[in-house]
């Protein structure tokens, strides 16, 4: 503890070179561990059937092929379920953004009786196990004939992603100085104009972050859609599971399907990956 290095603005926390090497090695090993299964999926997806089932699996396809992808696309219901997933996800995300933004505005910009209670409910809803709600949900949607319908699932997904949306947007809106609102009001804006012209544009990054998160949640969901809807009205996750059980060993097309299914999410992630920390901070860290 005695010798503190003080050479001209260079302070080495790690002190030793060995420490740094160790840190880097652990990092690389762990990254490999995280990546390996994903790599294996890609590896399998490009292998012809006989190589997939080979008892001595290789780390790369000897005869790379796109056959698995074409057979996934041609598989029954694949395109249908992809479209279903897209519709349901976009409806839910759009709905959650509109409803969530307004709710977040109310919570962030007004003080009113019951505000604390609403915040508490928003948080608590994320805690309660959703699975226990499947039965009443099914009954409820049945009474309004929304089972086996894309609309019913969309509404359910909206409810599912709304708490996070409200909570994150609340964080972003709270970060906009109230002085801006007041200045605009003095300049003759109405409250509605303040919300529309000032707060909405400034919440832009928050809207992007929450919509991506919502997209991932809704796109990847399969328990609800699997329970409420028949195969022709399900999404790609449910399709994958169905094919896992019925086809058993057709790993190639299955892995190709998994890759295709993950592509939209990965693209979205790469677009916002710089901002992902910001989104998380606004939502969770600020509390």
């Amino acid at each position, binding site marked *: *503890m*005695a010798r*503190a290095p*003080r050479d001209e*603005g*260079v*302070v*080495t*926390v*790690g*002190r030793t070179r060995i420490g740094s090497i160790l*840190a880097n090695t652990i*990092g690389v090993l762990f*990254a490999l*561990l*995280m*990546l390996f*299964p*994903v790599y*294996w*999926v890609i590896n*399998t997806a490009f292998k012809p059937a006989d190589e997939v089932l080979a*008892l*001595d699996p290789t780390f790369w396809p000897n005869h790379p092929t796109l056959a698995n992808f074409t057979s996934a696309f041609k598989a029954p219901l694949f395109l249908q379920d992809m479209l279903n997933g897209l519709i349901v996800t976009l409806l839910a995300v759009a709905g959650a953004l509109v*409803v969530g933004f*307004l*709710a977040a505005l109310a919570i962030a910009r*007004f003080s009113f009786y019951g505000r604390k209670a*609403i915040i508490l409910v928003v948080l608590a*809803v*994320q*805690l309660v*196990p959703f*699975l*226990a*709600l499947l*039965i*009443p949900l099914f009954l*409820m949607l049945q009474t309004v004939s929304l089972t086996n319908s894309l609309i019913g699932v969309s*509404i359910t997904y909206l*409810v599912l992603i709304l708490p996070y949306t409200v909570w994150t947007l609340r964080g972003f809106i709270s970060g906009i100085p109230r002085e801006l609102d007041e200045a605009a009001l003095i300049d003759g804006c109405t*409250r509605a104009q303040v919300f529309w012209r000032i707060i909405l544009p400034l919440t832009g990054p928050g809207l992007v972050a929450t919509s991506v998160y919502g997209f991932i949640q809704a796109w*990847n969901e*399969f328990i609800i859609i699997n329970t409420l809807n028949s195969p022709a009205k399900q999404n790609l*996750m*449910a399709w*994958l*599971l169905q094919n*896992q059980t019925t086809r058993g060993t057709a790993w190639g097309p*299955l892995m190709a399907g*998994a890759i295709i*299914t*993950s592509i939209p*999410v990965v693209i979205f*992630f790469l677009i916002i990956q710089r901002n992902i*920390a*910001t989104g*998380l901070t606004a939502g*969770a*860290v600020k509390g």
Partner: protein
Amino acid sequence: MRHGKYPFIIGFLVVPVALYVTFVVAAYLQTFQLSLTSWSGLGKIEYIGFDNFVKLWHDDTFWKSIKHNLFLLILLPIITIAIALVFAFLLNVGGGHKGGQSRGVWGSKVYRIIFFFPQLLALAIVAVIFGRVFGPDKSGMLNGLFPQSWSPWLFLADERYAMACILVVLIWQAVGFYVVLFSAGMGSISDDIYEAAALDGATRFTLFFRITIPLLWSTIQVAWVYLGIAAFDAFALVNIMTVDRGGPNGATSVLSLMIYRNAFDFSQAGYACALGVVLFFLTLTFAALTLRVTRRDSVEA
């Protein structure tokens, strides 16, 4: 400017409140109501008082499931948070301190993307992949990596290790999110603090335990609650990956799986709802306890 505020508040909140009253509050009330019936899922509803809960008390699978949920509840948060903290630390300050700015280890941006990757894969896909990883014969990924002379490990087909396999997958899937979450938290800790401590001769260890952890405490708390909730759920993985869904011999049964199977496979909707009620109270108790027990004077960064 005060007048005219309520129209906005009511207008803005009426839809979300209505949605929650129907889809969450009313739905839960119905779960409570159905838990007092012998309803099969179809046909007549008959009230049987607390019989479902009595039956539950004597149900071996129920206690096994509770045990498995507790196993996850204790180990999942501890291991995930420990790994995530260490890596977030490595990524943010582990690389040393040059020119007045703390740096992560080499390539920390790439790591951040890699660690987040599992988060992007749907649980359905994760489950399918790890079904392959844990394949019980030589075509399984891990068994394929082991020396040829070893007899293949059974993994999910072995009662003793099946639950541990589930735990591994849950950690694998979750850890990246928490690395990013903690990184965000660490990013907001001022460099001056680290620099001052480093000047005073603090080692990496001291920095980690004396500065990073106390300043991140509220984030760690949030992480703990989220991971606990995930431990109470675990439905997707168990349902897809395990032998006989919850097997072998009930070795991986969890509460959420019991709910689903009773409701949709065994036509015991009333019983499933009773399990749902139990899960509801367990989850809320856990969340409240965590927040209370881990409360300490927060240190402002």
